[in-house]
């Protein structure tokens, strides 16, 4: 009798576990790998928080993932750009329909307020500040409160992109007492240490830097189509569509303003396997960055593909190898070419990416056909060529490896290959390279380095060879920070790449206006990069994601986050 009772209770217990939470039919459930931490549109740090902020706030221009083009968002049209002396004037016109959550219009005064918040001292804005340092002042049109001009120092081709690329803040919510009205944007240009003692600014800073402006659902309300309804730290974040949002009434097709799903839930699941299980259990509607092996399993799973569609868009993220050309042993380009000839890029792709990648000759994506140099062939494994190149570079083959006299000292050609710890893709690739190099008689040690240490060593040019990934975009190809010689000393040119010709190409590209000329320059740059073999691009990845079949209008794209959740519509 007692046993029966126990059995009964445990069955009851089991039954109550079987219940699944109820949900709204057109709710989209998306996974985030970590808590967004802060949703402040100025001081956010993670890709996840950016994805959420994009639904709450808007910038002047935005990327339409449907065709990967930059389109006006809060701005009515593309800006007009005038260059005068050493200044550039970029003029925007805001959409007349644009509104904040309380129904008041978005005006040029809000843009000016945003710029002040981005540029002022004492505020938690250090991450964004460098991005708008070139904006010197703002001129608001006297007749039209929706028209304004940014006054910028100098000119670079990405200025247009950068002026449209920050979220506009509502002055009425962020500064209800109007403390920032005492300042102008130009007050914060250049050295503004004197302003730090201003009491008004100090008061505003104390208020603005508080956790409220990172998390409060009452304050973090922008002109976007959604508002936060719930945020359980580390668990989930729920957004609700605004009733009758203004963006849904803008008629023309030249924008990416959408807010279709009634509710969007972001689930925070750090572990990949757990996220996959949640997907299989239909507890998630979208999952991106699925590991390649699991993706193939899902593809083969009939019952899964009935409910979910799988996509592999060409991403703009590529893997590359950096060889430290500043090291005496690697300073001869023939040595670097020899090493490049020991790279088996196809094996890397097959083993570590399960073939979800496209080999590339340089940093320009193969999918951007006009700019991609298809006359070049990616490096492939060629032992004979590598040996010949090493000999040509003055290395002598001895019983235990290759030797050369550098600066009066006998030195052996050894390589230490490093990568960011935890990256299994690069771990595999490094091991494949190690085997390939061993056949040529070059001893290679493989070393995983903790993230910060890894980037610190790269900056200090304290490495032989590393694997890294870089993410780009299809609109701007200003490779100056990566390849300009003077950026080798204190910048992102870790490999020390650079020739007089490559420098002049990078300069010429920034002033070139004609597409043909740009293509010519970029193709030549790819040739030089290939020849110098200090920065060896390996492959462009394909992203792997799954989306539930009940949604359409997904706008799958190679740009992060690979889909536009605000445009999702229920299948009819």
């Amino acid at each position, binding site marked *: 009798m007692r046993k029966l009772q126990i059995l009964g209770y445990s069955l009851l217990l089991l039954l109550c576990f079987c219940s699944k939470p109820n949900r709204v039919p057109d709710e989209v459930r998306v996974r985030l790998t*970590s808590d967004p931490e*802060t949703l402040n549109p100025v001081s956010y740090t993670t890709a996840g928080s950016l994805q959420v902020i994009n639904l709450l706030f808007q910038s002047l221009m935005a990327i339409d993932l449907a065709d990967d083009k930059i389109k006006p968002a809060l701005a009515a049209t593309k800006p007009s750009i005038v260059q005068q002396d050493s200044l550039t004037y970029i003029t925007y016109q805001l959409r007349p329909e644009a509104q904040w959550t309380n129904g008041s219009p978005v005006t040029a005064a809000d843009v000016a307020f945003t710029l002040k918040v981005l540029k002022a001292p004492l505020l*938690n804005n*250090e*991450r964004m*500040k*460098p*991005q*708008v*340092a070139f904006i010197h002042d703002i001129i608001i049109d006297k007749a039209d409160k929706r028209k304004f001009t940014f006054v910028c120092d100098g000119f*670079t081709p*990405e200025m247009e*992109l950068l002026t449209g690329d920050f979220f506009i803040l509502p002055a009425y919510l962020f500064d209800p007492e109007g403390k920032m009205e005492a300042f102008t944007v130009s007050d914060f240009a250049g050295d503004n240490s004197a302003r730090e003692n201003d009491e008004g600014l100090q008061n505003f800073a104390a208020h603005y830097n*508080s*956790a409220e402006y*990172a998390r409060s659902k009452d304050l973090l309300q922008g002109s976007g189509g959604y508002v936060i309804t719930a945020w*359980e*730290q*580390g*668990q*989930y974040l729920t957004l609700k569509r605004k009733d009758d949002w203004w963006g849904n009434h803008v008629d023309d097709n030249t924008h990416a303003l959408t807010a279709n799903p009634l509710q969007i839930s972001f*689930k*925070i699941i750090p572990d990949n396997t*757990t996220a996959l*299980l*949640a997907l299989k*259990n239909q507890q998630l509607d979208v999952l991106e960055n699925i590991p390649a092996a699991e993706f193939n399993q899902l593809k083969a799973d009939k019952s899964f593909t009935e409910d979910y569609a799988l996509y592999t868009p060409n991403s703009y993220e590529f893997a590359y190898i950096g060889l*430290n050309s*500043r*090291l*005496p042993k690697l*300073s001869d380009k023939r040595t670097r070419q020899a090493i490049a000839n020991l790279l088996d890029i196809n094996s890397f792709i097959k083993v570590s990416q399960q073939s979800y990648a496209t080999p590339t000759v340089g*940093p320009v994506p193969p999918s951007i056909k006009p700019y991609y140099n298809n006359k070049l062939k990616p490096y492939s494994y060629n032992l004979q060529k590598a040996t010949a190149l090493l000999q040509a570079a003055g290395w002598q083959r001895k019983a235990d490896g290759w030797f050369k006299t550098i*600066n009066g000292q006998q030195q052996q050609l050894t390589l230490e290959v490093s990568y960011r710890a935890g990256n299994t893709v690069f771990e595999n690739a490094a091991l494949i390279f190690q085997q390939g190099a061993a056949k040529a008689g070059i001893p290679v040690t493989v070393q995983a380095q903790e*993230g*910060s*240490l890894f*980037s*610190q060593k790269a*900056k*200090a*040019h*304290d490495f032989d060879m590393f694997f890294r990934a*870089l993410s780009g975009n299809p609109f701007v*190809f200003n*490779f*100056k*920070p*990566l390849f300009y*010689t*003077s950026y*080798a*000393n*204190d*910048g*992102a040119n870790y490999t020390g790449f*650079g*020739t007089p010709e*490559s*420098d002049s190409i990078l300069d010429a590209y920034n002033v070139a206006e004609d597409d043909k000329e740009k293509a010519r320059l970029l193709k030549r740059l790819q040739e030089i990069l290939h020849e110098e073999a200090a920065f060896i691009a390996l492959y462009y990845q394909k992203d792997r994601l799954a989306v539930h079949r009940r949604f359409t209008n997904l706008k799958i794209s190679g740009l992060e986050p690979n889909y536009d959740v605000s445009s999702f519509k229920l299948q009819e």
Partner: protein
Amino acid sequence: MRYYLLKRLFLAIPVLWLLATLVFMLSRLLPGSYAAESILQEGNGYYAKGSAADRATAYQQYLIRTGQHLPLFYFSVSSGATPPDSLLRLLPEAAQHNLQQLAWHIGNWQEAYTFWRTLQELQLHAGPAELQALAPFLQTITTTTNVQQRVEAARAIIKYDTASPLARKLYRLALKLQQQHRLSFMIPSLRWHGTANQYHKWLTGILHGNLGNSYRDSRSVTDIIVETSANTFWIIFISMLLTTLAALELSIKLMQPRYKQWRKAVMPLLFLIDSIPLFVLALLLLVLFASPAFLQLFPVYGLGYGYGGQTRIEQITHTLPYLVLPILCLSLAHLPYLVNQFYNALSAAESMDYTRTARAKGLPYGLIIRKHMLRNALLPIITLLSDFLPALIAGSVIIETIFAIPGMGRLLVTSVQARDYPLLVAIVLVVAVAKVVSHVLADICYAYADPRIRYQSQA
């Protein structure tokens, strides 16, 4: 007894202080910092979002705004050759590293700095062709530990461009440094910073009950810990309770002769479980009990939605299913070890005289175990349990990550990864306090289990 416990608690304070201080110092020795990671990072490489100089300025402003520009401690002892913090702080991290190394090799930071500046200027003024040709020598000069090599490299630079005054200056300096007394870096130098240091600020904050704010979302560390520790506490507490009870029952059962056959089956099974790493066990449980491929009994992740306006009981019944697998996982992982220890403790008690006496009295074996053997075996068990906490917290790191439960374990990992020092130090402090409390509890339990200890401590 009460006096004894008070004394223990009182003695724990300096230990806690020392521990927190050590963690405070050690955490700052990690390479990279939150600000450097988020502000100095180049971002994507297709175009520059701001120049390196603007980023460096913003970084300095951040350090000053958050008080991280101050020295770490009241004083610093370092090699006499180390450049002062006030100088290093103005440079990017990579340059700091290079200059420091150079200063140690040279043995005098002022001269190292002049040398380093000349080197920087030379690179700044060199054209691309020149830079390409000189790069290997420049690299040698910055990194080599060999004085002769440095001079050689400087000479090579002059050979390339005989007219350059900077190259000449560099060569002159290199020659001069050759004659330096290079052991001077062994002489330590003491620098006094006074109370304007990060440690002082942090310690006074703690004494006022303020553990600081998280670097990531500027929330008060105390709030974050209070919010997340509840989940972890319940998971650890319930699984500890379950494991202990299960281990006790199991070992008692296994002691009895009539379960001899069981012992042969259960012990190897426990060994098997023990050999499975915790994360594999967690994933195994997930795949077995939360997947449509096998049995879909439990939810996969998280703690479910809160609906608001629920009663406490509703809340508990709502979150309970989500906690079953994590708790089961943590309990299973630690069960084999505990059973083994309990079983051994009981076995040791079995060969004692009092057990034989009890048997001779004709008591049933089950009663002998519970009444006579267990009480004596309890002492090692209590010690074991009080030491159990660190293992459970280490376990909760994995469990919370896999089951997506927001708790202290996951918080610890993310705060280490993000270099969120205030949070990191506070979590370690909380764990340390829990450990001290568990030791005090163990003392009480000792006294309860063994009256002899009670009398001794009263004496």
